[in-house]
């Protein structure tokens, strides 16, 4: 089949599905949807359709990034509006089938909103104020197409950039990328066109193309969502890279913890091969390109470029000193191009719409969009895709919906273990590579954790350092031993054993590790600590000088206490539920916590009925009246 014929076939199929006579039910079944029970919803729909003898099709799609609405269901009905339903459970399915598949009631009380045009009663999702700020590029198809059907991708424009690229001279592709201003999305922001050019000019054969899908930050998942929801766009970018650099072998290095992404990638690779976009003589040309999947074995440092190549070679993934750079001597000592998942996604877009178009998006020095994984105390958890240069305030309040339960915003942690913590006073900071670095943080992985008054910044710094310390590969002494020393100091501080000089010690150690380490892991490991010391000095002082945790988090610095005046004496919830039997009733039936037995698990606070609210956390623990000792 020629590409035109494939396109025609794909479009016909797409039109009959999305604009045909039979209602279409889309269920988001990416990992996040599954966790919320999406597969049970698919099953419920399939059963109900049979039971009611209704005409409808169920299709599993990826994730729109609206994690707080999962399981998310979209119903597309001929000559009627398309409605998205949020938090759908199997018991709501009969209602939807009865209402909107069989009848004409769109069940708007269950809806998040409508797609393409509201009806006055329901909000139109594309017109939601957040989407005004989210002109999505990378995620534009996520949640709308079936990621396991290449025809959906082709019908929505897929692989036409490859067709175009195959008719362009390689240097023209590279010069487009250079002019577009695209920078690597793997965190460090290296100019992509320049990297491709270096690799293209490098001597040595064969050359390799690698996609970095290791995504090691323990709080980011955008690469996974892209691969689970629209995998072909990554393949298309890689194939174009192979053509431009004269390489015939690509690898995708993906974490083993992403089984669904691996499964969907395998399907995508098979289908791309079947339709002639991959493999020998692509689309009838002399160009051949193959892609293999390599699954990572769970080491954060494997995400570092040189370490990743060692892992593919079957070795311990330990970074090496540069030069030589990987573009000249990478995998098996051959010229190798390594880019992040999202970087490859931008390539077909730039080929299709042009470098000039791309360079209008974003800021002077950071072009395009960036995806962030919003989590923590934010109302709308999930993924957001915004143009570079959007401010943190817009990201958190306009798109993210602000802090949950009316709590007070304290700060954010951006960029994962290499990133930093920024306070409320920096909310006007634009998110782009350079502004974030200037503030002491980093674009990094794109993890964005929002913290409120109940989160302790010292504990957060300790958390990230604990992670990097465990993940340090041990090659550089400063990183191996320095991070351990820093961690020890932080453990002391959160346990109330800190000394005021410790803060200077942490800064000194942090700077030494930064200067004395070979790879990005060590060079950025101290960022979370250095930024919290810089912006949340008072919290460190409270821990050290007053043995007090202002957020009431650090276990050694808090105690649980039952306020006698509030305790409804007849009730025994706390006594019965305490897992270590630390709570007893005295002769007046007042509840008392034996502080020597208490493990501070918080169960008593959880079970104390809301109308009494008698259990509180106190810090420092010495605030507990003496007789309870």
């Amino acid at each position: 089949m020629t590409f035109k014929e494939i396109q025609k076939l794909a479009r016909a199929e797409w039109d009959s599905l999305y604009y045909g006579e039979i209602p279409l039910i889309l269920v988001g079944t990416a990992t996040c949807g599954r966790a919320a029970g999406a597969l049970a919803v698919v099953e419920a729909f399939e059963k109900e359709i049979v039971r009611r003898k209704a005409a409808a099709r169920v299709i599993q799609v990826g994730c729109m990034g609206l994690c707080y609405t999962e399981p998310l269901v979209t119903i597309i009905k001929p000559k009627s509006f398309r409605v998205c339903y949020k938090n759908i459970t199997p018991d709501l399915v009969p209602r939807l089938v009865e209402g909107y598949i069989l009848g004409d009631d769109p069940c708007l009380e269950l809806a998040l909103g409508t797609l393409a045009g509201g009806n006055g009663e329901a909000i139109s999702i594309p017109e939601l104020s957040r989407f005004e700020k989210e002109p999505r590029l990378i995620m534009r198809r996520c949640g709308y197409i079936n990621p396991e059907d290449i025809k959906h991708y082709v019908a929505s424009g897929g692989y036409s950039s490859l067709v175009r690229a195959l008719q362009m001279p390689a240097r023209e592709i590279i010069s487009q990328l250079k002019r577009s201003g695209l920078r690597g999305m793997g965190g460090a922001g290296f100019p992509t066109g320049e990297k491709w050019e270096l690799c293209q000019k490098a001597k040595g054969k064969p050359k390799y193309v690698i996609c970095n899908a290791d995504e090691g930050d323990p709080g980011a998942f955008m690469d996974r969502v892209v691969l689970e929801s629209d995998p072909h766009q990554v393949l298309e970018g890689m194939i174009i890279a192979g053509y431009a650099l004269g390489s015939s072998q690509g690898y995708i290095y993906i974490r083993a913890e992403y089984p669904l992404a691996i499964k969907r990638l395998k399907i995508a690779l098979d289908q791309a091969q079947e339709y002639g976009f991959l493999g020998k003589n692509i689309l009838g040309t002399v160009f051949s390109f193959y892609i293999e999947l390599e699954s990572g074995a769970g080491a954060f440092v494997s995400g570092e470029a040189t370490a990743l190549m060692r892992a593919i070679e079957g070795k311990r993934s330990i970074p090496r000193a540069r030069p030589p750079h990987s573009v000249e001597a990478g995998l098996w000592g051959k010229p190798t191009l390594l880019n992040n998942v999202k970087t490859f996604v931008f390539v077909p877009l730039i080929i299709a719409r042009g470098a000039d178009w791309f360079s209008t998006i974003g800021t002077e020095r950071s072009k395009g969009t960036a995806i962030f994984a919003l989590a923590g105390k934010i109302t709308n958890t999930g993924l957001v895709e915004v143009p570079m240069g959007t401010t943190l305030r817009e990201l958190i309040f306009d798109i993210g919906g602000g802090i949950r339960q009316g709590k007070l915003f304290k700060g954010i942690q951006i960029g994962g273990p290499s990133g930093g913590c920024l306070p409320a006073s920096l909310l006007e900071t634009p998110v782009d590579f350079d502004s974030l670095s200037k503030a002491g943080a980093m674009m990094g992985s794109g993890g964005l954790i929002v913290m409120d008054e109940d989160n302790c910044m010292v504990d957060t710094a300790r958390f990230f350092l604990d992670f990097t310390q465990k993940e340090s590969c041990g090659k550089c002494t400063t990183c191996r031993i320095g991070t351990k020393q820093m961690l020890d100091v932080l453990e002391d501080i959160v346990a109330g054993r800190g000394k005021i000089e410790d803060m200077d010690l942490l800064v000194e150690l942090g700077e030494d590790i930064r200067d004395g380490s070979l790879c990005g892991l060590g060079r950025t490991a101290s960022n979370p600590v250095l930024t919290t010391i810089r912006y949340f000095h008072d919290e460190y002082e409270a821990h050290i000088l007053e043995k007090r945790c202002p957020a009431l988090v650090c276990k050694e610095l808090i105690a649980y206490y039952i306020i006698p005046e509030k305790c409804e004496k007849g009730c025994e919830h706390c006594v019965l539920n305490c897992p270590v039997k630390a709570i007893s009733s005295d002769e007046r039936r007042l509840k008392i916590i034996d502080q020597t037995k208490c493990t501070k698990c918080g169960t008593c606070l959880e079970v104390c009925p809301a109308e009494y609210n008698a259990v509180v956390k106190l810090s420092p623990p010495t605030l507990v009246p003496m007789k309870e000792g």
Partner: protein
Amino acid sequence: MAELKERLQRLLTEEKRDKRHLISLLQEIQQEFSYLPREVMLEIAWFLGVSPSTVYSVTTFFNQFRFTPVGKHPIRICLGTACHLAGGKLVLETVERELDIKVGGVTADGQFGLERVACIGCCALAPVMTINGDVYSRLTPLKMEEVLTLLKSGGESERK
């Protein structure tokens, strides 16, 4: 032992006989046996023509590999960023206390194993864990105890 060898031979196919497949072979073997038995690691070293210490150095480097069997119900508690901030550690401590095991351990009867994982991508539902692949969300120590009680009594706990 004979049976172990046989299961192993099925995985050690000729096209895999190259040092570069060491990690993927180990992954497949762990998938099959749930851990890496000592004899098996020696066998791989011989198969690929590398020293046992090379195999050992790779297996100890990556977090994915384990040297003891997992329990019948592996409890995987997420301690990614979002889950940590939402109190994942308290949930972990509950399991440690109730089952009297530490992270990486298995209960004496082989029923439960405890592991920590980093972000499984359900941050919106933090803190979360998986048992036998099912996701349990918005956990608290109390909820955790209930899940354990149910599982111990052999009942399938209600999801979430």
